C-alpha cells in the first residue's frame, strides 16, 4: 500500500475516539486491510490508554465492595448469565415451536455449564445435551470487542445466532450473516442490533448448517447483498479445528 493511502494522521484521534462516526468507520475499514496503520494505531492507543492515569486519585464508597459481591453472587447463581441478558427479549422471526425449542437449547447450555461467554476468544465447538452444538465466534480487527456464538441442532437443520457488543450501524446498514462453503457465501439472514450491540436471531439456510464450513458477519446495505461487500465484523469455523 502506498504511503498516501495510509491514514496515520487520523490515528491519534481515532485512538482517542474523537473522530466523527463517518470518519471513524472509514478508518476502521481501512485498518482491516492495512498492517502498517494497525501497528501505528497500537502505538497511539497505548498512549491514549495511559491518559487514564491523569485522573486524580479517589476512592469509591466503602460499601461498594459489598454491593459488588452481592451482585456477583447473584450472577453466579444464574451460572454467570447476567440478569440483564436473561431479561432481554429474544426477538426472532420463528415459528412458535422452534422459538420455544431454541430458548430451551440456550437454557440447556446454561445448565450444563458450557461457559460459552468465557470462551469467546477461542474458536471452539462445544457439544451439549442432545448433540446440541455451540460454536463461538470471534470479532475481527474491525470489532475485536464483538462476541457471539452459533447454536445448532445435531442435524444442523435448526440454528440460532447470538451476538453482543457489535458496533452500531448507520440507519442504511444492517449486519448480514454468511454461511461459507468452498469459498462460496450463502446469506443466512439480515439483522440489526440493539443499543448494546446485542441480537439473537434464527439462522435461515437452504441446507443443513452441517454442510457449511464457516460463518461470517459483514456490514451490508439495509436491503442486503448477494455476496459480502462490507467490513467483516465476526467470523468462526463451524467445525472442530
Amino acid at each position, binding site marked *: 500500500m502506498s504511503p498516501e493511502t495510509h491514514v496515520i494522521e487520523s490515528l491519534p484521534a481515532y485512538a482517542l475516539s*474523537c473522530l466523527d462516526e463517518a470518519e471513524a468507520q472509514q478508518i476502521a475499514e481501512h485498518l482491516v486491510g492495512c498492517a502498517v496503520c*494497525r501497528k501505528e494505531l497500537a502505538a*497511539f492507543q*497505548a498512549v491514549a490508554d495511559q491518559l487514564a492515569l*491523569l485522573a486524580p486519585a479517589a476512592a469509591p464508597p466503602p460499601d461498594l465492595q459489598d454491593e459488588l*459481591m452481592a451482585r456477583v453472587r447473584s*450472577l453466579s447463581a444464574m451460572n454467570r448469565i447476567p440478569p440483564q441478558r436473561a431479561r432481554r427479549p429474544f426477538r426472532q422471526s420463528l415459528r412458535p415451536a422452534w422459538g420455544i425449542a431454541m430458548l430451551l437449547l440456550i437454557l440447556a447450555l446454561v445448565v450444563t455449564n458450557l461457559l460459552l461467554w468465557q470462551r*469467546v476468544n477461542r474458536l471452539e465447538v462445544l457439544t451439549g445435551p442432545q448433540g446440541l452444538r455451540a460454536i463461538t465466534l470471534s470479532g475481527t480487527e474491525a470489532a475485536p470487542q464483538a462476541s457471539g456464538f452459533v447454536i445448532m441442532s445435531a442435524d444442523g437443520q435448526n440454528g440460532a445466532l447470538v451476538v453482543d457488543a457489535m458496533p452500531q450501524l448507520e440507519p442504511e446498514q444492517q449486519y448480514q450473516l454468511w454461511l461459507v462453503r468452498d469459498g462460496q457465501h450463502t446469506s443466512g439472514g439480515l439483522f440489526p442490533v440493539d443499543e448494546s450491540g446485542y441480537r439473537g436471531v434464527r439462522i435461515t439456510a437452504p441446507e443443513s448448517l452441517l454442510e457449511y464450513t464457516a460463518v461470517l458477519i459483514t456490514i451490508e446495505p439495509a436491503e442486503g447483498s448477494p455476496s459480502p461487500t462490507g467490513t467483516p465484523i465476526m467470523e468462526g469455523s463451524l467445525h472442530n479445528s
Partner: protein
Amino acid sequence: MSDSKRDDATLMRLVAQAHTDAFTELYERYNRLVFSVALAIVGDKETAAEVTLDVFVRLWQRAGTYRPEQARVSTWLTAITRHHAIDILRRERSQPEANETNWDRLLLPSSATNHELEEDVALSLQRERVRSALAQLPEEQQQVLLLAYFKGYSQQQIAEALKQPLGTIKTRIRLAMQKLRQTLQEERPSPDKSERTPAAYYKDENKRGT
C-alpha cells in the same frame, strides 16, 4: 507488582473460573483507579460508583475474554471505564463546554496521598511519567487531549467549545499524541511485554456521538 502477590493474569484466569477471592483481590487492587477515572469523567461520586460497579461486574462476566498479551489488566479496566463513563456523559450532555473539568487537578504532580500510597508502585511510577510527559506539551495541546479523553468530545465538539477552527484542533491532537508517544517511549524503563496489539480491546464502548 510485589512478588508476594499473584500477578494480574493469574487472577484473571482464576476469576474466569469463578474464584471470588481472586476477584476480590483484583477489586482491591484496582477499585481506586477505576473509580478515579470514572469520577474524572462523569464528575459526581454517585455516578462514578455506579460505573465502577458496572465495570467490575463486567470484569467478572468477561474475565475469560481477557488476553494478557494484548494489554495490562489496568489498561483493560480503564478502557472499559472510560467508554462506559463517556457513554453516560454523552447521554446526559447537551452542549459541550470547555471549562467543565478542573484541569489543574489533572496536571498537578501526585502528592503522597493515602490513596496513592496504597497503589501499586509500578502504577504510581507510570502515573508520574504520564503527568510529566503531558506537562511538557503546550497548554493548548494539553487541553484538547483532556477534553477528548475525559469528556469524550469529538474534534468537532472541541473546536466548538474552544471556538477554534476544526483544522487547528485536529493538528493539536495529532501533535500532542505524537509528542506524548515519543516522550513515553523514550522514558519507558524496560520492554513492555503487554504492549497493546492492533486487535485490541473494547472499542465497543466507542459509541461515538458527535
